[in-house]
């Protein structure tokens, strides 16, 4: 099983979620995060003083899927979250060693 963490723009969240549901993703966790990447935030002016807004708000989606499903999930996120502008975010993929459904105690793929 793989965990896919995607940092995306807020306004893309609904669109990405809907597209993922269509490709058969049955659950996800979303949180509000702040961060920066290459862009290093952006500069703003307030009363003549320039300052850098370096932690920009983003949405983090976490999705756990079977190994076979992971590529289609990544492709779907790439397709729907992309605007072509700096700040589209990143996708991180890691291996999940174990997974448990709390209600039933089911483990592994059954718990997906």
């Amino acid at each position: 099983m793989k965990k896919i963490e995607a940092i995306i723009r807020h306004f893309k969240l609904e669109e990405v979620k809907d597209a993922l549901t269509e490709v058969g993703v049955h659950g996800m966790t979303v949180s509000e995060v702040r961060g920066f990447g290459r862009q290093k935030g952006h500069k703003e002016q307030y009363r003549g003083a320039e300052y850098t807004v370096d932690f920009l708000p983003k949405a983090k989606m976490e999705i756990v899927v079977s190994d076979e499903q992971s590529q289609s999930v990544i492709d779907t996120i790439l397709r729907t979250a992309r605007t072509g502008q700096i700040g589209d975010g990143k996708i991180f993929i890691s291996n999940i060693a174990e997974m448990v459904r709390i209600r039933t105690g089911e483990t592994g793929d059954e718990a997906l």
Partner: protein
Amino acid sequence: MKKIEAIVRHYKLEEVKNALSEAGIQGMTVSEVRGFGRQRGHKETYRGAEYTVDFLPKVKMELVVDDDELTKATETIMKTASTGQIGDGKIFVTDLAEVIRIRTGETGAEAI
């Protein structure tokens, strides 16, 4: 070392935390998340219009344990976070490559 991420119901947080402390787990990180699983959120009616509340608020607990403490930790979470109703949440376990205590620079099991 393993990282355990457990998505649990808000009102179970204290109970799970206390049970983990009793079991000798000494630290954790908690954040507010939103998500959905099989239940797909639930439907609500507002002024006659039905809409789906698809991202439900949950709590994410993150804890890092030594390999030999893993089963004890997941079983404790299972036992205390389970209500038997849909929406109890999930537990994800990943391998952790390294842990460092920032204050001292200790690494590995010493840093847990």
